[in-house]
């Protein structure tokens, strides 16, 4: 508790450069989140820590910008008919329990093994989860490309068909995203796992979105939009928990929010211009690059714990900087793919408008 109070009173001084930096990182993070439902936040905690913000304040401030951002993104995509509110709220509530459980695991690890142990746990979780889930999505993307089915609607997996076929009396709920009734006994553990991941690596959506797609059978567009509801529900509770200890630096949170609200609107608009398949492409790309970034940090933490021979300070600095740069690169590549999709879509729509106007003029002139 003393540690918490010390961190809370240690808010950094803000300069114009810092403010602009946070605004821009927020914008790019928001763009990615608006498009794939999550994924922008993982870079914000390290970005704030690189400015000297204490770890817990960075996590708390990140979370406090995430839930209002997710709310705006969810509302925007709801207007496009992409959100299943019921599925989002049910998974969000179980996700909240997952966040609390995940945070308690983190605290125990930190208590037993210190900061290096906690960091190692986070990095290994990143590598394992992103490795497994990212590979599944990449395999799916490659299959669509190979079979030339990237233009088609998402197919329901065999696992999702099985889940939808199970009838457990008293637990069945109809979900619009699935166009089917399924037992909440399936959604609860998925929401819980999303929450644990959110508390561990700050991006629950890396489990939430793929699980809705491959386990429950939701199309990618609806899964990514519904994830925003989950992020909102989990984020409110998580932020309140940190705010109770006075850990939220509201200036940092609102600065990032300032940029991310521009980004999330644009990301949401982008989903209406691209093939649904692109959600998976962006998600797999970011996940696999971030995996590489976090894997670079594993030797640093192993060395700090004395499990391998000690790395020199120069090596530690090189690995830390490279890892952070790769993480930023992952976000930039994701943002580039999204912006390219939006620009291509806008040009195609403009050309179609011109064609329709010419056709209309020809028909009017012929009369």
């Amino acid at each position, binding site marked *: 508790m003393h540690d918490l109070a010390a961190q809370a009173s240690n808010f950094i001084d803000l300069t114009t450069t810092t403010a602009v930096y946070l605004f821009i990182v927020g914008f790019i993070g928001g763009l990615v989140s608006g498009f794939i439902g999550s994924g922008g936040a993982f870079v914000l905690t390290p970005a704030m820590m690189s400015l000297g913000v204490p770890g817990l304040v960075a996590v708390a401030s990140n979370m406090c910008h995430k839930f*209002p951002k997710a709310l705006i993104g969810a509302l925007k995509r709801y207007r496009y008919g992409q959100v299943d509110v019921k599925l989002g709220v049910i998974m969000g509530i179980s996700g909240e329990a997952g966040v609390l459980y995940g945070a308690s695991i983190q605290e125990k690890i930190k208590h037993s093994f210190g900061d290096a142990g906690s960091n190692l746990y986070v990095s290994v979780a990143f590598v394992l989860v992103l490795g497994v889930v990212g590979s599944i999505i990449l395999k799916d993307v490659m299959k669509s490309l190979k079979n030339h089915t990237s233009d088609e609607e998402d197919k329901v997996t065999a696992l999702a068909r099985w889940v939808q076929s199970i009838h457990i009396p008293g637990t069945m709920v109809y979900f619009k995203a699935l166009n089917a009734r399924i037992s909440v006994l399936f959604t609860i553990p998925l929401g819980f796992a999303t929450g644990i991941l959110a508390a561990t690596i700050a991006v629950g959506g890396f489990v939430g979105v793929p699980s809705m797609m491959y386990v429950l059978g939701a199309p990618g567009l609806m899964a990514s939009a519904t994830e925003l509801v989950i992020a909102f529900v989990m984020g409110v509770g998580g*932020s309140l928990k940190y*705010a109770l200890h*006075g850990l939220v630096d509201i200036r940092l949170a609102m600065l990032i929010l300032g940029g991310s609200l521009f980004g999330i*609107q644009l990301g949401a608009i982008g989903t209406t211009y691209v093939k649904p398949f692109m959600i998976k492409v962006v998600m797999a790309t970011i996940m696999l690059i971030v995996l590489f970034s976090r894997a670079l940090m594993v030797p640093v933490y192993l060395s700090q714990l004395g499990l391998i021979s000690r790395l020199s300070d120069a090596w530690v600095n090189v690995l830390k900087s490279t890892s952070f740069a790769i993480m930023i690169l992952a976000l930039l590549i994701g943002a580039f793919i999204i912006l390219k999709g939006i620009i291509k879509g806008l040009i195609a*729509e403009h050309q179609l408008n011109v064609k329709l106007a010419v056709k209309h003029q020809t028909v009017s002139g012929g009369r």
Partner: protein
Amino acid sequence: MAGQIDKFKKKHYGKAIVLGIVSLVLYTILFTEQKVLNEVFAKGGYFALLPIATAFLFSFVHGNFTGNFWDIIGISAKKEKR
């Protein structure tokens, strides 16, 4: 048709200007009063509701502003055409 477009644009311009000004005022207060705000918000306990309420307020004002902003510069969701 052109009249309808003008009306649509005027509505968005009006909203964006009002929301933009309110958003700017909110951010100005946040930074000019940062010392006081940080002290109060870091107290925890019941004061925990303040950052949550602030986040909701900013998301409502600034979120609506950014939505109108993209509409005005011509970047809006794809319209289905037949």
